[in-house]
Structure formats: C-alpha cells, structure tokens
C-alpha cells in the first residue's frame, strides 16, 4: 500500500448540550497531520461525543471543526469522489453489518462507490485482512467472531479506503490485556506504514502512553491538558497528575 500523509484537525470552541445538560463546554484542540492523538478522561466526560463531532455524526451547538482547513460539514456535503481526503471510524462496538461476511464488510465502501474493479477490491480486502492478522476469516459472519476479531475487522474496514484520518472510539474496551496490546501495536503499525492522522478515545492511560504521540485530557467538557505522550508525566496539571496516580503509571 502507498504511504499517505495525514490530515490536520483543528477544533475550536466546540460546545454541545443534550436536553439542556452541557457535555462539551468549549473544546479547543489542535491535532497535527500524522499524529496519534489519544484523548483520555473519566467516564461520561464527553470523549466519545467529541469523536462523533470530529466524524461529523453530530453537529456542535457552537464552535467549529476543521480538517485540513475544511469545515467538517462542508466535507460531509461533498460527493464521495470529490472529497480531498478520506476519513474512517472504528466504533466501540465494532459496528460491523451482521448480515455481511467479513470480506463483504471490509470491501463495502469500495463496492458501494464502485471505485475499483471487483478483482482489485478482493486484493485490497485480502491485504487489509492480512494487516490485521485475519487471513482465512473472509467468509465468516461477524456473529462467528470473538470481540477482538470483530475489532480487527472494523480496523481492516477502516483501512480499506486508505484513509488520511482514522478515529477510534474506545478500541480496546472489553478486551483482555493481550488483545489490547495487539490493537495498540496495530495502531502504531498503521502510523509507521501509512502516516494517517489517528485520534483514539480511551480511558486506558497505559494504552494511551503506549500508542499516542500526543495525549489530551478531557475534563468537564474541556481539554484541560495537552502534551506530547512522553511529557505527560511532567505535566503540572492537577487533574492529569490525579489521573496518572489513579492509573498507577510512570510514563
């Protein structure tokens, strides 16, 4: 596969409330092209909500989200063939289509948009499944796979379109430590081979430190700290320190 450059993401002043209850209270975050940004925070702090805003699945009440200078809504309104870059998302529950096989799930977007001839799609699907160590599972249905395998199929599906931005919503939730490590290694391998910008939402700080080039801490609907992963331990932010202590981590 060809190495691709990532896309820069700029989030400014994003606010969102549900039924009057504010969840995001003015999020400002800058993610450089090619970074692995891990957003950490406690449960219910709005990490997944923020990720869904970046994917354009939710509209903010206020504020803007720009990808390579292009407002997310303008990006979404463009026809697929005119989009200047591609964005993929790996959902917490994998979100595979249960009626389709693994291979059909991975090749779905390519087939729907008829971007490649069928033989080429089959090759791309095979390559993506190889990349996530799932060769031989092409004909299986999602219901026949374990949680970790479903996550890897979801990542293969995200990779199939050669995206410049990949968003992960809690990619290791409900996975055992070995599978968590495998997923983490996969994210860093994608970074090394493709250079795509990756945004990972996680509450697992050990994973964040392992895979992230940068880490942002979300609290009370705002980014309260943003550091290169290696510098996180030196942060003087009291919440970050509390978070690190709670996780028992030395980074």
């Amino acid at each position, binding site marked *: 596969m060809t190495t691709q450059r990532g896309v820069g993401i700029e989030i400014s002043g994003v606010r969102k409330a549900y039924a009057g209850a504010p969840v995001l209270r003015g999020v400002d975050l800058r993610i450089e092209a090619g970074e692995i940004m891990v957003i950490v925070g406690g449960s219910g702090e709005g990490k997944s909500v923020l990720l869904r805003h970046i994917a354009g699945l939710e509209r903010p009440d206020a504020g803007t989200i720009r990808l390579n200078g292009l407002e997310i809504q303008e990006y979404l309104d463009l026809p697929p063939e005119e989009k200047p870059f591609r964005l993929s998302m790996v959902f917490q529950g994998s979100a595979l289509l249960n009626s389709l096989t693994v291979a059909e799930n991975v090749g779905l977007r390519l087939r729907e948009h008829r971007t490649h001839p069928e033989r080429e799609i089959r090759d791309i699907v095979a390559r993506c499944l190889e990349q996530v160590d799932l060769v031989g599972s092409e004909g299986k249905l999602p219901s026949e796979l374990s949680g970790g395998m479903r996550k890897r199929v979801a990542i293969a*599906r995200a990779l199939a379109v050669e995206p410049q931005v990949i968003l992960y919503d809690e990619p290791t939730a409900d996975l055992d430590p070995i599978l968590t490590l495998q997923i983490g290694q996969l994210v860093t391998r994608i970074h090394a081979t493709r250079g795509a910008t990756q945004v990972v939402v996680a509450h697992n700080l050990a994973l964040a430190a392992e895979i992230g080039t940068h880490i942002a801490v979300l609290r009370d609907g705002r980014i309260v700290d943003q550091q290169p992963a290696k510098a996180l331990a030196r942060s003087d932010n009291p919440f970050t320190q509390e978070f690190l202590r709670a996780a028992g981590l030395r980074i």
Partner: protein
Amino acid sequence: MATASDTFGRPLPPVPRRAGLLTRIGRPILEILQILGEGTVVFFGTLRRLGPAGRTWTRVMAQMVRIGTDTLPLAFLVSLFVGMVLVVQAADQLQQYTQEILGSIVGLAMTKELGPVIMAFLIAGRAGSAIAAEIGSMSVNEEINALRTMDIDPLRFLVVPRFIAMTLVLPMLILYADLIGIAGGAVAVSFDPAIRISVWQYLDNLTEWVNFKDVVVGLIKGFAFGIIVSVICCTFGLRTKGGSEGVATSTTAAVVWSFVLIIVFDYVIVRLALVF
C-alpha cells in the same frame, strides 16, 4: 443545607418537577407530529433516491424474497380460510333468501376489502416488524453511523430496497390472496352440507359481479399500503434509541402505526374510488 454532588464534587442537576397537565397532553401530540414529520422526510428522501444506483436491484430482489416469497404459505392459509368463513357466514344469513349471490359476496369482499387489508396487516406484522427490528438494531449498534462514515447513504442502502420491494410485492400478494380466497369459498361451497348451490353457480355469480375496476382498486390499495408499511417501519427503525428495549418499543410502535394508517388510508382510497 448541603447540595447533592457527584463523585467529582460537581453539583447534581435539580430533580425535575412533576409534569403538568399541559405537558402531559402536549408531549404525546408533539411525539405524533415528530413521527409524522420524520416519516414524511423518509418518504420524500426515498423518492428522491429511487433512481438506479449501485447494487440496489440485487438488494430489492433479496427483499422481495423475504417480504413476498417467504410470506406465500402464510398468505395461502389465511386467504383460504377467510374465503371459506365468508361463504359459511353469508350462506347462513342467506338461508331463507337465496344463496346464489354467494359468489359475488366473496368476490367483492376479497378483491375490494379483505384481500388488500388482510395482506397489508400480514405484511406489516411479519415483514414490517422484521424491518423495524433489523434497522432498529442497526441504529443502536451504530451500524447506521458506520454507513454514514463510509459515505454510504442509509436511505439509499437500507430504505430504498425495502420500499421498492414492499410496494411491488404487496399488490402481487393481494392478487394471490384474492384468488386463494375465492378458491377457499369454492371449497366451502363444494363441501358444506348447508350450502345448496353448485361451485359453477358460485363462480358464475362471481364473474358476473366482480369487474376489473374492483380488482384494480384492491391493487391500488396494495400499492399505497406497501408505501405506508415500508416508510413507517423504516422510520421507526431509523429513530430507534436505547438498546434492546428501544428496539422492542420501536418494533411494536411500527406495527401499531402501520395498522392504524392502513385502516385510515383504506377509508380514503375507498372514498376516492367512489368519486371516480
């Protein structure tokens, strides 16, 4: 007095007051308007996407099999017994007059009313509930959002094939039900000792009274009911929230709404057919 707070020491939102009378009346009305609005958006959105695109026709064929072919045995059984019951009931009422009009009674009842309505109910209960549950579970499992992030339009991918399949299949099923119902009536005529006319008299009377327009009105109803059931069930599927309980609620609501709208539109179509 200390204020209640969460684990992080943040104050909890105040406990909402009990809803007043106006709220209790207004909320369901707003909910109904919301559903009708969403249904209208789904309907016109589907119409705009009806052009041939992608692999729509493969999916339409798959849905036609699920909605139509798989319903044939059940439709056969239901229509056969409806025709038989009609004959037996009417024959009993007509015992002191003439049973020679049994054919027209069964023919007109099946083609104009019972065939379309019973088949629409059957499809709403069997295929409509399956559609609402399937799309609903896709909504709560974020599969619909996954489609959106893949630049795949959920209306084109999920709703259009079901819409086309149901609007094509329901008139066909109605024609099938009409024939089986009439045949059921003939079976009852030939076997029931209380009926004193022959099968030929039954069929003669039927062909004399049932005309092409009656059959066409039934088929138009089928077309309209197909649109209603597919749009309502897809709308409820797409608006599903809240896990498996949400899927169950949506599925029930989709079937109930379909039944109510089938009866309402049945009246509207009958009234219009009498005008033209």
